Protein backbone atom coordinates (compact mmCIF):
# COMPACT_ATOMS: atom_id res chain seq x y z
CA UNK A 1 0.00 0.00 0.00
CA UNK A 2 2.75 2.39 1.00
CA UNK A 3 4.62 1.51 -2.14
CA UNK A 4 1.60 2.00 -4.31
CA UNK A 5 1.07 5.44 -2.89
CA UNK A 6 4.66 6.46 -3.43
CA UNK A 7 4.55 5.36 -7.03
CA UNK A 8 1.31 7.22 -7.56
CA UNK A 9 2.81 10.35 -6.00
CA UNK A 10 5.85 10.08 -8.24
CA UNK A 11 3.66 9.70 -11.31
CA UNK A 12 1.51 12.67 -10.40
CA UNK A 13 4.57 14.78 -9.64
CA UNK A 14 6.09 13.96 -12.99
CA UNK A 15 2.86 14.45 -14.91
CA UNK A 16 2.30 17.87 -13.36
CA UNK A 17 5.88 18.79 -14.08
CA UNK A 18 5.64 17.76 -17.70
CA UNK A 19 2.38 19.63 -18.05
CA UNK A 20 3.94 22.72 -16.53
CA UNK A 21 7.10 22.43 -18.55
CA UNK A 22 5.15 22.11 -21.78
CA UNK A 23 2.94 25.04 -20.92
CA UNK A 24 5.95 27.22 -20.13
CA UNK A 25 8.17 26.17 -22.99
CA UNK A 26 5.44 26.43 -25.58
CA UNK A 27 4.60 29.89 -24.35
CA UNK A 28 1.01 28.93 -23.62
CA UNK A 29 1.10 30.52 -20.22
CA UNK A 30 0.73 34.27 -20.02
CA UNK A 31 3.49 36.21 -18.28
CA UNK A 32 1.18 36.95 -15.40
CA UNK A 33 0.73 33.26 -14.66
CA UNK A 34 4.34 32.43 -15.50
CA UNK A 35 5.32 34.91 -12.85
CA UNK A 36 2.99 33.23 -10.38
CA UNK A 37 4.61 29.82 -10.62
CA UNK A 38 7.31 30.52 -8.06
CA UNK A 39 5.01 32.36 -5.62
CA UNK A 40 2.61 29.40 -5.82
CA UNK A 41 5.43 27.00 -5.01
CA UNK A 42 6.62 29.22 -2.14
CA UNK A 43 3.12 29.36 -0.71
CA UNK A 44 2.63 25.61 -1.02
CA UNK A 45 5.82 25.02 0.95
CA UNK A 46 4.76 27.53 3.58
CA UNK A 47 1.25 26.12 3.90
CA UNK A 48 2.36 22.50 4.06
CA UNK A 49 5.02 23.26 6.66
CA UNK A 50 2.66 25.35 8.77
CA UNK A 51 0.14 22.54 8.53
CA UNK A 52 2.63 20.39 10.37
CA UNK A 53 2.47 22.77 13.34
CA UNK A 54 -1.19 23.73 13.21
CA UNK A 55 -2.83 20.65 11.77
CA UNK A 56 -0.71 17.83 13.12
CA UNK A 57 0.96 19.24 16.21
CA UNK A 58 -2.23 21.09 17.11
CA UNK A 59 -0.52 24.36 18.05
CA UNK A 60 -1.66 27.70 16.65
CA UNK A 61 1.33 29.55 15.21
CA UNK A 62 1.02 33.18 14.16
CA UNK A 63 4.71 33.67 13.39
CA UNK A 64 5.41 31.51 10.40
CA UNK A 65 6.55 34.54 8.43
CA UNK A 66 9.25 34.95 11.06
CA UNK A 67 10.80 31.60 10.15
CA UNK A 68 10.40 32.45 6.51
CA UNK A 69 12.22 35.75 6.88
CA UNK A 70 15.08 34.30 8.91
CA UNK A 71 15.64 31.64 6.30
CA UNK A 72 15.30 34.17 3.51
CA UNK A 73 17.85 36.54 4.98
CA UNK A 74 20.34 33.79 5.87
CA UNK A 75 20.16 32.13 2.47
CA UNK A 76 20.13 35.37 0.49
CA UNK A 77 23.05 36.86 2.43
CA UNK A 78 24.97 33.79 1.37
CA UNK A 79 24.04 34.36 -2.27
CA UNK A 80 24.97 38.03 -2.08
CA UNK A 81 28.43 37.35 -0.70
CA UNK A 82 29.29 34.03 -2.37
CA UNK A 83 29.95 33.95 -6.07
CA UNK A 84 29.53 30.34 -7.03
CA UNK A 85 27.91 28.81 -10.09
CA UNK A 86 24.11 28.80 -9.66
CA UNK A 87 23.72 25.02 -9.47
CA UNK A 88 25.96 24.98 -6.38
CA UNK A 89 24.97 28.34 -4.95
CA UNK A 90 21.20 27.86 -4.92
CA UNK A 91 21.12 24.47 -3.17
CA UNK A 92 23.64 25.74 -0.62
CA UNK A 93 21.62 28.91 -0.01
CA UNK A 94 18.48 26.81 0.42
CA UNK A 95 20.15 24.53 2.94
CA UNK A 96 21.70 27.41 4.88
CA UNK A 97 18.38 29.25 4.99
CA UNK A 98 16.60 26.11 6.10
CA UNK A 99 19.11 25.30 8.82
CA UNK A 100 19.20 28.78 10.32
CA UNK A 101 15.39 28.87 10.37
CA UNK A 102 15.36 25.40 11.93
CA UNK A 103 17.60 26.68 14.71
CA UNK A 104 14.99 29.32 15.49
CA UNK A 105 12.30 26.67 15.22
CA UNK A 106 14.13 24.87 18.00
CA UNK A 107 14.22 28.03 20.12
CA UNK A 108 10.49 28.67 19.60
CA UNK A 109 9.72 25.02 20.24
CA UNK A 110 10.89 25.40 23.85
CA UNK A 111 8.16 27.78 25.07
CA UNK A 112 5.72 25.52 23.25
CA UNK A 113 6.35 22.98 25.97
CA UNK A 114 5.02 25.22 28.67
CA UNK A 115 2.33 27.09 26.83
CA UNK A 116 -0.78 26.02 25.06
CA UNK A 117 -3.37 27.40 22.73
CA UNK A 118 -3.69 31.13 22.44
CA UNK A 119 -0.80 31.77 24.78
CA UNK A 120 1.55 29.94 22.51
CA UNK A 121 -0.03 31.70 19.55
CA UNK A 122 0.97 35.01 21.02
CA UNK A 123 4.53 33.86 21.64
CA UNK A 124 4.84 32.95 17.97
CA UNK A 125 3.26 36.29 17.03
CA UNK A 126 5.76 38.04 19.28
CA UNK A 127 8.58 36.07 17.74
CA UNK A 128 7.59 37.20 14.25
CA UNK A 129 7.40 40.83 15.35
CA UNK A 130 10.77 40.64 17.13
CA UNK A 131 12.42 39.26 14.02
CA UNK A 132 10.95 42.03 11.89
CA UNK A 133 11.89 44.74 14.34
CA UNK A 134 15.48 43.50 14.61
CA UNK A 135 15.85 43.13 10.84
CA UNK A 136 14.58 46.69 10.41
CA UNK A 137 17.45 47.92 12.56
CA UNK A 138 20.23 45.66 11.31
CA UNK A 139 22.60 47.54 9.01
CA UNK A 140 24.25 44.44 7.58
CA UNK A 141 21.01 43.29 5.95
CA UNK A 142 20.07 46.75 4.74
CA UNK A 143 17.51 47.60 7.43
CA UNK A 144 14.13 48.75 6.21
CA UNK A 145 15.59 49.60 2.82
CA UNK A 146 15.99 45.89 2.24
CA UNK A 147 18.65 43.41 1.22
CA UNK A 148 19.33 44.11 -2.43
CA UNK A 149 21.23 42.52 -5.25
CA UNK A 150 20.24 38.91 -4.63
CA UNK A 151 21.29 37.32 -7.89
CA UNK A 152 22.38 33.75 -8.23
CA UNK A 153 23.13 34.03 -11.90
CA UNK A 154 20.38 31.60 -12.84
CA UNK A 155 17.98 32.71 -15.53
CA UNK A 156 14.76 33.96 -13.95
CA UNK A 157 12.47 31.95 -16.17
CA UNK A 158 14.14 28.68 -15.11
CA UNK A 159 13.59 29.41 -11.51
CA UNK A 160 10.27 27.64 -11.26
CA UNK A 161 12.02 24.31 -11.81
CA UNK A 162 14.05 24.75 -8.62
CA UNK A 163 10.94 25.85 -6.76
CA UNK A 164 9.02 22.84 -8.03
CA UNK A 165 11.73 20.45 -6.88
CA UNK A 166 11.70 21.99 -3.41
CA UNK A 167 7.90 21.66 -3.29
CA UNK A 168 8.15 17.94 -4.11
CA UNK A 169 10.84 17.45 -1.45
CA UNK A 170 8.72 19.31 1.13
CA UNK A 171 5.61 17.27 0.42
CA UNK A 172 7.55 14.01 0.41
CA UNK A 173 9.38 14.70 3.65
CA UNK A 174 6.39 16.03 5.55
CA UNK A 175 3.89 13.44 4.41
CA UNK A 176 6.36 10.64 5.09
CA UNK A 177 7.03 12.10 8.50
CA UNK A 178 3.34 12.20 9.28
CA UNK A 179 2.70 8.67 8.14
CA UNK A 180 5.66 7.34 10.07
CA UNK A 181 5.84 6.29 13.71
CA UNK A 182 6.96 9.83 14.57
CA UNK A 183 3.95 11.25 12.86
CA UNK A 184 1.58 9.05 14.76
CA UNK A 185 3.28 10.15 17.96
CA UNK A 186 2.79 13.79 16.94
CA UNK A 187 -0.89 13.20 16.23
CA UNK A 188 -1.28 11.41 19.54
CA UNK A 189 0.13 14.46 21.30
CA UNK A 190 -2.31 16.70 19.44
CA UNK A 191 -5.29 14.56 20.39
CA UNK A 192 -4.40 14.15 24.03
CA UNK A 193 -1.12 15.20 25.58
CA UNK A 194 -1.63 13.42 28.84
CA UNK A 195 -2.64 10.15 27.24
CA UNK A 196 0.30 10.38 24.84
CA UNK A 197 2.70 10.99 27.67
CA UNK A 198 1.32 8.11 29.66
CA UNK A 199 2.01 5.64 26.88
CA UNK A 200 5.61 6.75 26.84
CA UNK A 201 5.68 9.26 23.97
CA UNK A 202 8.42 11.82 24.46
CA UNK A 203 6.30 14.96 24.17
CA UNK A 204 9.25 17.36 24.49
CA UNK A 205 11.13 15.71 21.69
CA UNK A 206 8.22 15.53 19.26
CA UNK A 207 6.94 19.03 19.83
CA UNK A 208 10.36 20.52 19.21
CA UNK A 209 10.91 18.23 16.25
CA UNK A 210 7.66 19.45 14.71
CA UNK A 211 8.69 23.08 15.02
CA UNK A 212 12.19 22.39 13.71
CA UNK A 213 10.96 20.60 10.58
CA UNK A 214 8.30 23.22 9.85
CA UNK A 215 10.79 26.06 10.37
CA UNK A 216 13.32 24.38 8.10
CA UNK A 217 10.93 24.29 5.18
CA UNK A 218 9.58 27.77 5.86
CA UNK A 219 13.19 28.96 5.74
CA UNK A 220 13.68 27.30 2.37
CA UNK A 221 10.51 28.95 1.12
CA UNK A 222 11.97 32.27 2.22
CA UNK A 223 15.16 31.63 0.27
CA UNK A 224 13.11 30.83 -2.84
CA UNK A 225 11.10 34.00 -2.36
CA UNK A 226 14.22 36.15 -1.98
CA UNK A 227 15.91 34.74 -5.05
CA UNK A 228 12.80 35.15 -7.12
CA UNK A 229 12.19 38.80 -6.21
CA UNK A 230 15.79 39.90 -5.81
CA UNK A 231 15.11 42.14 -2.82
CA UNK A 232 14.09 41.30 0.74
CA UNK A 233 12.34 43.78 2.96
CA UNK A 234 11.46 43.19 6.62
CA UNK A 235 8.04 44.75 6.05
CA UNK A 236 7.11 41.85 3.75
CA UNK A 237 7.26 39.37 6.61
CA UNK A 238 4.76 41.02 8.89
CA UNK A 239 1.88 39.67 10.86
CA UNK A 240 -0.36 39.75 7.80
CA UNK A 241 1.97 37.38 5.97
CA UNK A 242 1.73 34.86 8.80
CA UNK A 243 -2.03 35.19 8.72
CA UNK A 244 -2.08 34.70 4.96
CA UNK A 245 -0.29 31.37 5.38
CA UNK A 246 -2.59 30.38 8.22
CA UNK A 247 -5.62 31.09 6.05
CA UNK A 248 -4.28 28.64 3.46
CA UNK A 249 -3.86 25.93 6.08
CA UNK A 250 -7.28 26.40 7.59
CA UNK A 251 -9.07 26.76 4.30
CA UNK A 252 -7.46 23.57 3.07
CA UNK A 253 -8.69 22.03 6.31
CA UNK A 254 -6.20 21.30 9.04
CA UNK A 255 -4.18 18.16 8.94
CA UNK A 256 -4.85 17.70 5.25
CA UNK A 257 -1.81 18.16 3.03
CA UNK A 258 -3.50 18.03 -0.40
CA UNK A 259 -5.97 20.55 1.02
CA UNK A 260 -3.15 22.91 1.96
CA UNK A 261 -1.69 22.59 -1.51
CA UNK A 262 -4.95 23.39 -3.25
CA UNK A 263 -5.72 26.26 -0.90
CA UNK A 264 -2.23 27.69 -1.46
CA UNK A 265 -2.75 27.58 -5.22
CA UNK A 266 -6.21 29.13 -5.06
CA UNK A 267 -5.25 31.87 -2.64
CA UNK A 268 -2.20 32.84 -4.69
CA UNK A 269 -4.07 32.91 -7.97
CA UNK A 270 -7.29 34.47 -6.70
CA UNK A 271 -6.02 38.01 -5.96
CA UNK A 272 -4.29 38.06 -9.35
CA UNK A 273 -7.32 36.70 -11.18
CA UNK A 274 -9.36 39.47 -9.55
CA UNK A 275 -7.17 42.22 -10.98
CA UNK A 276 -9.88 43.25 -13.44
CA UNK A 277 -11.99 44.39 -10.51
CA UNK A 278 -9.47 47.18 -9.90
CA UNK A 279 -10.31 49.13 -6.76
CA UNK A 280 -12.85 46.57 -5.62
CA UNK A 281 -10.35 43.74 -5.68
CA UNK A 282 -9.59 43.58 -1.97
CA UNK A 283 -13.25 43.95 -1.10
CA UNK A 284 -14.26 41.01 -3.28
CA UNK A 285 -11.31 39.04 -1.96
CA UNK A 286 -12.51 39.59 1.61
CA UNK A 287 -16.04 38.56 0.70
CA UNK A 288 -14.73 35.47 -1.07
CA UNK A 289 -12.71 34.56 2.01
CA UNK A 290 -15.75 34.79 4.27
CA UNK A 291 -17.98 32.87 1.88
CA UNK A 292 -15.45 30.09 1.37
CA UNK A 293 -15.12 29.66 5.12
CA UNK A 294 -18.87 29.66 5.58
CA UNK A 295 -19.40 27.07 2.90
CA UNK A 296 -16.51 24.86 3.90
CA UNK A 297 -17.02 24.89 7.66
CA UNK A 298 -20.70 25.37 8.37
CA UNK A 299 -21.95 22.11 9.92
CA UNK A 300 -25.36 22.33 8.24
CA UNK A 301 -23.81 22.86 4.84
CA UNK A 302 -21.39 20.00 5.40
CA UNK A 303 -24.39 17.77 6.11
CA UNK A 304 -26.07 19.10 3.01
CA UNK A 305 -23.00 18.39 0.91
CA UNK A 306 -22.83 14.88 2.25
CA UNK A 307 -26.45 14.29 1.26
CA UNK A 308 -25.96 15.65 -2.23
CA UNK A 309 -22.81 13.74 -3.03
CA UNK A 310 -23.85 10.75 -0.97
CA UNK A 311 -20.33 10.19 0.18
CA UNK A 312 -19.04 9.71 3.64
CA UNK A 313 -16.52 12.38 4.38
CA UNK A 314 -13.80 11.43 6.75
CA UNK A 315 -14.89 12.76 10.10
CA UNK A 316 -11.65 13.77 11.76
CA UNK A 317 -11.82 15.33 15.17
Amino acid at each position, binding site marked *: MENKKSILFAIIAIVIFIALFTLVEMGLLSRQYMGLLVPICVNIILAVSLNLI*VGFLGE*LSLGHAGFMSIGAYAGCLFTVYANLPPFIEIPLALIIGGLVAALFGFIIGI*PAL*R*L*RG*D*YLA*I*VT*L*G*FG*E*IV*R*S*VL*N*SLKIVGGSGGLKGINSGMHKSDYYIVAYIVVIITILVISNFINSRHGRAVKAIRDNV*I*AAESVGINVVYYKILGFVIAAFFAGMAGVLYGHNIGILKPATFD*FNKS*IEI*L*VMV*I*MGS*MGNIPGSIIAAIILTVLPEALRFLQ*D*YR*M*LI*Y*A*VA*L*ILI*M*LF*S*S*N*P*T*LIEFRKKIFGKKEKGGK
Partner: protein
Amino acid sequence: MKEFITFIQQLINGLSLGSVYALMALGYTMVYGIAKMLNFAHGDIIMVGAYTVSIVCSIAGFSPMAAVLASIVVCTALGVTIEKIAYKPLRNASPLAVLITAIGVSYFLQSVALLIFGSKARKVQSVLNLESVKIGGVDLSGVALVIIFITILIMILLTLFIKCTKVGKAMLAVSEDRGAAQLMGINVNATISMTFAIGSALAAIAGVLFVSSYGYVDPYTGALPGIKTFVAAVIGGIGSIPGAMFGGIVLGIIESLSKAYISTDLADAIVFGVLIVVLLFKPAGMLGKKKITKV
Protein backbone atom coordinates in the same frame (compact mmCIF):
# COMPACT_ATOMS: atom_id res chain seq x y z
CA MET B 1 15.86 66.32 39.38
CA LYS B 2 15.28 67.17 35.76
CA GLU B 3 15.93 63.59 34.83
CA PHE B 4 13.50 62.42 37.47
CA ILE B 5 10.79 64.68 36.09
CA THR B 6 11.45 63.34 32.63
CA PHE B 7 11.18 59.82 33.97
CA ILE B 8 7.86 60.58 35.62
CA GLN B 9 6.69 62.21 32.40
CA GLN B 10 7.64 59.11 30.43
CA LEU B 11 5.81 56.96 32.94
CA ILE B 12 2.72 59.14 32.52
CA ASN B 13 3.08 58.89 28.74
CA GLY B 14 3.13 55.13 29.10
CA LEU B 15 0.13 55.22 31.36
CA SER B 16 -1.96 57.23 28.93
CA LEU B 17 -0.92 55.04 25.98
CA GLY B 18 -1.62 52.00 28.13
CA SER B 19 -5.06 53.22 29.06
CA VAL B 20 -5.97 53.42 25.37
CA TYR B 21 -4.78 49.82 24.94
CA ALA B 22 -6.67 48.83 28.08
CA LEU B 23 -9.90 50.37 26.86
CA MET B 24 -9.62 48.55 23.55
CA ALA B 25 -8.68 45.32 25.30
CA LEU B 26 -11.81 45.34 27.48
CA GLY B 27 -14.20 44.69 24.62
CA TYR B 28 -11.77 42.31 23.03
CA THR B 29 -11.22 40.18 26.08
CA MET B 30 -14.93 39.95 26.71
CA VAL B 31 -15.68 38.45 23.30
CA TYR B 32 -12.58 36.39 23.62
CA GLY B 33 -13.50 35.02 27.03
CA ILE B 34 -17.15 34.30 26.39
CA ALA B 35 -17.50 33.48 22.71
CA LYS B 36 -14.04 31.84 22.76
CA MET B 37 -12.96 33.44 19.53
CA LEU B 38 -10.16 35.76 18.51
CA ASN B 39 -12.18 38.56 17.03
CA PHE B 40 -9.62 40.02 14.67
CA ALA B 41 -12.20 42.47 13.41
CA HIS B 42 -12.41 44.21 16.79
CA GLY B 43 -9.78 46.79 15.83
CA ASP B 44 -11.72 47.54 12.66
CA ILE B 45 -14.95 48.08 14.56
CA ILE B 46 -12.99 50.64 16.57
CA MET B 47 -12.07 52.23 13.25
CA VAL B 48 -15.73 52.34 12.19
CA GLY B 49 -16.58 53.98 15.50
CA ALA B 50 -13.95 56.62 14.91
CA TYR B 51 -15.22 57.35 11.39
CA THR B 52 -18.77 57.64 12.65
CA VAL B 53 -17.69 60.29 15.14
CA SER B 54 -15.84 62.18 12.47
CA ILE B 55 -18.84 62.18 10.12
CA VAL B 56 -21.42 63.14 12.71
CA CYS B 57 -19.16 65.87 14.09
CA SER B 58 -18.61 67.35 10.66
CA ILE B 59 -22.38 67.69 10.11
CA ALA B 60 -23.27 71.04 11.51
CA GLY B 61 -25.54 71.15 14.50
CA PHE B 62 -24.59 67.87 16.06
CA SER B 63 -23.05 67.97 19.46
CA PRO B 64 -20.12 65.73 20.41
CA MET B 65 -22.44 63.77 22.70
CA ALA B 66 -24.70 62.96 19.75
CA ALA B 67 -21.62 61.80 17.87
CA VAL B 68 -20.65 59.44 20.67
CA LEU B 69 -24.18 58.02 20.83
CA ALA B 70 -24.32 57.61 17.07
CA SER B 71 -21.01 55.84 17.15
CA ILE B 72 -22.19 53.41 19.82
CA VAL B 73 -25.40 52.68 17.90
CA VAL B 74 -23.61 52.14 14.60
CA CYS B 75 -20.95 49.87 16.09
CA THR B 76 -23.39 47.80 18.09
CA ALA B 77 -25.57 47.28 15.05
CA LEU B 78 -22.52 46.42 13.00
CA GLY B 79 -21.18 44.00 15.61
CA VAL B 80 -24.49 42.17 15.86
CA THR B 81 -24.88 42.03 12.08
CA ILE B 82 -21.37 40.65 11.60
CA GLU B 83 -22.05 38.08 14.26
CA LYS B 84 -25.31 37.01 12.60
CA ILE B 85 -23.92 36.75 9.11
CA ALA B 86 -20.35 35.63 9.55
CA TYR B 87 -19.85 34.01 12.94
CA LYS B 88 -23.14 32.41 13.91
CA PRO B 89 -23.24 29.86 11.06
CA LEU B 90 -19.89 28.62 12.30
CA ARG B 91 -20.89 28.26 15.92
CA ASN B 92 -20.13 24.54 16.00
CA ALA B 93 -17.21 24.62 13.58
CA SER B 94 -13.56 24.69 14.57
CA PRO B 95 -12.53 27.91 16.36
CA LEU B 96 -9.87 28.44 13.74
CA ALA B 97 -12.47 28.55 10.98
CA VAL B 98 -14.13 31.41 12.83
CA LEU B 99 -10.73 33.07 13.21
CA ILE B 100 -10.30 33.12 9.44
CA THR B 101 -13.82 34.47 8.96
CA ALA B 102 -12.96 37.22 11.43
CA ILE B 103 -9.89 38.06 9.39
CA GLY B 104 -12.11 38.16 6.31
CA VAL B 105 -14.44 40.57 8.09
CA SER B 106 -11.46 42.69 9.10
CA TYR B 107 -10.28 42.93 5.46
CA PHE B 108 -13.83 43.66 4.41
CA LEU B 109 -14.27 46.58 6.81
CA GLN B 110 -10.88 47.99 5.82
CA SER B 111 -11.67 47.75 2.10
CA VAL B 112 -15.07 49.36 2.52
CA ALA B 113 -13.56 52.21 4.54
CA LEU B 114 -10.88 52.62 1.90
CA LEU B 115 -13.43 52.79 -0.89
CA ILE B 116 -15.61 55.29 0.93
CA PHE B 117 -13.10 57.54 2.65
CA GLY B 118 -9.89 57.01 0.71
CA SER B 119 -6.64 56.13 2.38
CA LYS B 120 -5.70 59.58 3.61
CA ALA B 121 -5.97 59.99 7.35
CA ARG B 122 -8.97 62.15 8.20
CA LYS B 123 -8.69 64.78 10.87
CA VAL B 124 -11.32 64.40 13.54
CA GLN B 125 -12.45 67.13 15.80
CA SER B 126 -11.91 65.98 19.35
CA VAL B 127 -15.06 65.42 21.36
CA LEU B 128 -13.11 66.25 24.49
CA ASN B 129 -11.54 69.67 24.60
CA LEU B 130 -9.56 69.61 27.78
CA GLU B 131 -6.49 71.52 28.82
CA SER B 132 -3.61 69.47 30.16
CA VAL B 133 -2.86 69.68 33.86
CA LYS B 134 0.63 70.61 34.98
CA ILE B 135 1.91 69.25 38.28
CA GLY B 136 5.49 70.07 39.21
CA GLY B 137 6.78 70.13 35.65
CA VAL B 138 4.91 66.99 34.65
CA ASP B 139 2.24 67.30 31.98
CA LEU B 140 -0.94 65.34 32.49
CA SER B 141 -3.03 65.37 29.37
CA GLY B 142 -6.70 65.96 30.08
CA VAL B 143 -7.83 63.43 27.48
CA ALA B 144 -5.60 60.78 29.04
CA LEU B 145 -7.14 61.44 32.44
CA VAL B 146 -10.62 61.03 31.00
CA ILE B 147 -9.60 57.83 29.26
CA ILE B 148 -8.16 56.36 32.43
CA PHE B 149 -11.31 57.31 34.31
CA ILE B 150 -13.64 55.86 31.71
CA THR B 151 -11.59 52.67 31.41
CA ILE B 152 -11.76 52.08 35.16
CA LEU B 153 -15.46 52.89 35.18
CA ILE B 154 -16.18 50.47 32.35
CA MET B 155 -14.08 47.80 34.00
CA ILE B 156 -16.10 48.10 37.20
CA LEU B 157 -19.43 48.20 35.40
CA LEU B 158 -18.57 45.19 33.29
CA THR B 159 -17.44 43.18 36.28
CA LEU B 160 -20.63 44.07 38.12
CA PHE B 161 -22.72 43.30 35.08
CA ILE B 162 -21.25 39.84 34.72
CA LYS B 163 -21.34 39.05 38.41
CA CYS B 164 -24.73 40.47 39.33
CA THR B 165 -27.14 40.37 36.41
CA LYS B 166 -28.91 37.40 34.98
CA VAL B 167 -27.57 38.02 31.47
CA GLY B 168 -24.08 38.41 32.87
CA LYS B 169 -24.28 35.18 34.76
CA ALA B 170 -25.52 33.48 31.62
CA MET B 171 -22.45 34.78 29.81
CA LEU B 172 -20.23 33.39 32.50
CA ALA B 173 -21.98 30.04 32.26
CA VAL B 174 -21.61 29.99 28.48
CA SER B 175 -17.92 30.74 28.78
CA GLU B 176 -17.42 27.94 31.32
CA ASP B 177 -19.29 25.21 29.49
CA ARG B 178 -21.48 25.89 26.50
CA GLY B 179 -23.19 22.51 26.53
CA ALA B 180 -23.99 22.56 30.21
CA ALA B 181 -25.27 26.12 29.92
CA GLN B 182 -27.65 25.07 27.19
CA LEU B 183 -28.91 22.21 29.32
CA MET B 184 -29.62 24.67 32.08
CA GLY B 185 -31.95 26.54 29.75
CA ILE B 186 -29.63 29.36 28.75
CA ASN B 187 -30.10 30.57 25.21
CA VAL B 188 -26.49 30.26 24.09
CA ASN B 189 -26.96 31.96 20.74
CA ALA B 190 -28.70 34.96 22.25
CA THR B 191 -26.07 35.21 24.96
CA ILE B 192 -23.24 35.22 22.48
CA SER B 193 -25.02 37.80 20.32
CA MET B 194 -25.40 39.92 23.42
CA THR B 195 -21.68 39.56 24.11
CA PHE B 196 -20.93 40.84 20.64
CA ALA B 197 -23.30 43.75 21.08
CA ILE B 198 -21.58 44.82 24.29
CA GLY B 199 -18.12 44.18 22.89
CA SER B 200 -18.90 46.33 19.86
CA ALA B 201 -20.36 49.11 21.97
CA LEU B 202 -17.11 49.12 23.94
CA ALA B 203 -15.21 49.22 20.67
CA ALA B 204 -17.22 52.31 19.72
CA ILE B 205 -16.26 54.06 22.96
CA ALA B 206 -12.65 53.04 22.40
CA GLY B 207 -12.86 54.46 18.90
CA VAL B 208 -14.22 57.76 20.13
CA LEU B 209 -11.53 58.13 22.76
CA PHE B 210 -8.83 56.95 20.40
CA VAL B 211 -9.53 59.71 17.89
CA SER B 212 -9.92 62.18 20.71
CA SER B 213 -6.41 61.55 21.86
CA TYR B 214 -4.69 61.14 18.48
CA GLY B 215 -6.86 63.26 16.23
CA TYR B 216 -6.84 61.21 13.01
CA VAL B 217 -8.51 58.15 11.56
CA ASP B 218 -7.68 56.13 8.46
CA PRO B 219 -8.91 52.75 7.19
CA TYR B 220 -6.02 50.97 8.87
CA THR B 221 -6.32 52.74 12.22
CA GLY B 222 -7.61 49.57 13.86
CA ALA B 223 -5.00 47.18 12.50
CA LEU B 224 -1.96 47.79 14.69
CA PRO B 225 -3.90 48.53 17.89
CA GLY B 226 -5.81 45.32 17.15
CA ILE B 227 -2.61 43.32 17.54
CA LYS B 228 -1.43 45.30 20.57
CA THR B 229 -4.82 44.79 22.18
CA PHE B 230 -4.58 41.08 21.60
CA VAL B 231 -1.20 41.16 23.36
CA ALA B 232 -2.62 43.18 26.25
CA ALA B 233 -5.49 40.76 26.68
CA VAL B 234 -3.13 37.81 26.78
CA ILE B 235 -0.67 39.43 29.21
CA GLY B 236 -3.55 40.04 31.57
CA GLY B 237 -4.99 36.59 31.13
CA ILE B 238 -7.54 35.81 28.47
CA GLY B 239 -11.11 36.47 29.49
CA SER B 240 -10.16 38.32 32.64
CA ILE B 241 -11.63 41.82 32.66
CA PRO B 242 -9.34 43.34 35.28
CA GLY B 243 -6.56 41.44 33.49
CA ALA B 244 -7.25 43.29 30.23
CA MET B 245 -7.01 46.62 32.02
CA PHE B 246 -3.83 45.58 33.76
CA GLY B 247 -2.31 44.07 30.60
CA GLY B 248 -3.04 47.20 28.59
CA ILE B 249 -1.41 49.50 31.07
CA VAL B 250 1.63 47.27 31.54
CA LEU B 251 2.03 47.10 27.78
CA GLY B 252 1.83 50.89 27.45
CA ILE B 253 4.37 51.50 30.19
CA ILE B 254 6.84 48.92 28.88
CA GLU B 255 6.53 50.39 25.41
CA SER B 256 7.04 53.95 26.57
CA LEU B 257 9.95 53.21 28.90
CA SER B 258 11.79 51.04 26.43
CA LYS B 259 11.42 53.76 23.82
CA ALA B 260 12.66 56.34 26.29
CA TYR B 261 15.57 54.50 27.84
CA ILE B 262 16.64 51.64 25.61
CA SER B 263 15.98 52.16 21.93
CA THR B 264 13.14 53.39 19.77
CA ASP B 265 14.38 51.14 16.98
CA LEU B 266 13.97 48.04 19.05
CA ALA B 267 10.93 49.08 21.11
CA ASP B 268 8.66 46.51 19.46
CA ALA B 269 11.22 43.76 19.92
CA ILE B 270 11.54 44.65 23.60
CA VAL B 271 7.79 44.75 24.16
CA PHE B 272 7.30 41.33 22.62
CA GLY B 273 10.43 39.98 24.32
CA VAL B 274 9.03 40.97 27.71
CA LEU B 275 5.74 39.41 26.74
CA ILE B 276 7.36 36.08 25.95
CA VAL B 277 9.31 36.09 29.21
CA VAL B 278 6.16 36.94 31.19
CA LEU B 279 4.29 34.09 29.58
CA LEU B 280 7.10 31.65 30.28
CA PHE B 281 6.81 32.36 33.97
CA LYS B 282 3.06 32.90 34.11
CA PRO B 283 1.73 30.65 31.35
CA ALA B 284 -1.86 31.80 31.84
CA GLY B 285 -1.14 35.52 31.88
CA MET B 286 -0.77 37.78 34.90
CA LEU B 287 -4.33 37.58 36.20
CA GLY B 288 -5.54 34.52 34.34
CA LYS B 289 -6.67 31.37 36.06
CA LYS B 290 -4.74 28.25 35.41
CA LYS B 291 -7.01 25.50 34.21
CA ILE B 292 -6.42 22.01 35.46
CA THR B 293 -7.03 19.38 32.86
CA LYS B 294 -8.78 16.31 34.05
CA VAL B 295 -7.97 13.02 32.47
